[in-house]
């Protein structure tokens, strides 16, 4: 029992030593290798207790890339929709009756079903 418990008691009795600081540095470097940064005591929680903030830089960059890709795709989609709108407007301006006739009722029903 003494052999089992002594290391635990010993650790409890021990104050922070230079080895602990060096070990903390080492851990932070390992995290940094994986793009992770710990901001110690960065913010306070609702009880006023200081908490660390863990930032995953690689993940944040991936999120940024996704957002920008979406923005570019949105620009492309907006452009395509604009062009389509222009073409359809032109058809209506040229001959409205013909345009109305060209719309098939099945297409409208199909669209409604799809929306439902």
């Amino acid at each position: 029992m003494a052999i089992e418990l002594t290391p635990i008691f010993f650790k409890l009795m021990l104050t922070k030593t230079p080895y602990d600081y060096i070990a903390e540095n080492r851990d932070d470097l390992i995290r940094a290798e994986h793009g992770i940064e710990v901001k110690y005591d960065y913010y306070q929680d609702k009880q006023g207790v200081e908490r660390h903030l863990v930032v995953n830089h690689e993940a944040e960059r991936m999120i940024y890339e996704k957002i920008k890709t979406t923005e570019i795709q949105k620009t492309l989609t907006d452009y395509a929709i604009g062009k389509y709108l222009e073409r359809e407007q032109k058809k209506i301006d040229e001959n409205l009756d013909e345009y109305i006739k060209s719309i098939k009722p099945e297409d409208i029903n199909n669209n409604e079903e799809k929306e439902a």
Partner: protein
Amino acid sequence: MKKKKHRFKHWMHILSGEDWYIIKQSSDKIQKSFFRIGLLVAVIFIGSLISASAFIDHILENESWISIPIGILWALIITNLYILLLYTISPKLLPKAIKKLKHGKMSVENDTDLKNQNEFSFSLIFRFLFIGILAIIIAQPLNVLLLSKYAERSLENYKIEYRIKNIVAGDSGYIKNEMNDSASINNHFILCNDSTNYNLLRNKVAYDSAFLVSSVSNLDSLKKWNDTSTTNKETKIDSFRSVLNTLINNEVTSDQKYIAILDNIKTNDFKLESNILNISEQLKDKIESYNNLIFVLNKSDFYIKKIQILISENPFAWLFMFFIIGLFWLPIYFKYRIRKQTDFYTKKKEIEQNKIDSEYKTFNNQFELIFKQQYEKYNKGTLHKLLPILNVIEKLNPDAYEEIKKNIGEEVLIDSVKKYEHWADPPYRTKPKYKFENLPTEEFFINKLYK
């Protein structure tokens, strides 16, 4: 010779439980103090080795080939525990924040002032007790080793009482069986008109019954006297012990005599022969169990009982135990004296802080370098992924193209991460940074600087 002396000194400094390279840089006085501590730790190691080896030697009945390695192992464990505990006795040297939540705000207290540190905390008392327990454990086999001859008389008495108790308990069963079997044999002697054997058997049964009654009553009295605390109790106990011993010896002699008588009875009656054989066998069993008990008692050295006897009867055992406890506590006293009388811990604090600070500086540089490499990789990846799809919209929507390009350009400008520091004294994290918001008056500023 000088080299050997120097090496010995170096080993004693290692055993003292403090960093030897700091001791080496200290004054002669400090070095001597730590040498004394190391020497005491070496004595504790040797004491533990002798104690554990002696204990295992007794447990395994003189198997020294195993008792010495186990003794060495045990001594190493004890010494290691002791050095670790000794190390924890050192004062707190590095700044340590005690964070307390007061009225929803975090307050930080620093307690590294060597002079103001609380000396007798619960934790320290607990460590003292733990070291004391280790000392008590180590002291017991040494007590037996040194003082066992003073426990011989009490141990002999204990053995006699133990023998009597066991024999009386065993005999009660044998005597009951003997009485049952003797009834049928007696009937036969009556029928055969064999008054001599009839009387012999009747007397034996009566004698055994009387032995049982007498021994049980004497045992009860012995127990009562053992529990009392009167002055002449030893004489009384001795007399009861002697009576019981005589009773048992007489009983054994009587059994042996009666076996000889039974062996001489000759009969053609098979039933009678079988009954005689039964009684004879039982008596032989009884004698064998006596002999077995005596053999076991003689073989065992009653090691734990010896420890108990020494502790309960011998004041020297207590003195020796206190001496061992003192030996275990003495290095703690020396360490306190070093703390009070020398600047060793101030110097140690300085060396440790310098080490931590320089390590932290190197760490910060490495940290930034790693993130620089990481960001180089991330930026390359971002441009590689986004530029081809961004180029598609260059002609279609030049405004959006320019805006997104500018944004990406700003993002890839990040080329590293600087370590975030919330505290004014990293890496200890005990002093909050001064906030330059709502700056007070000029007078306050002057006071802050010069008072």
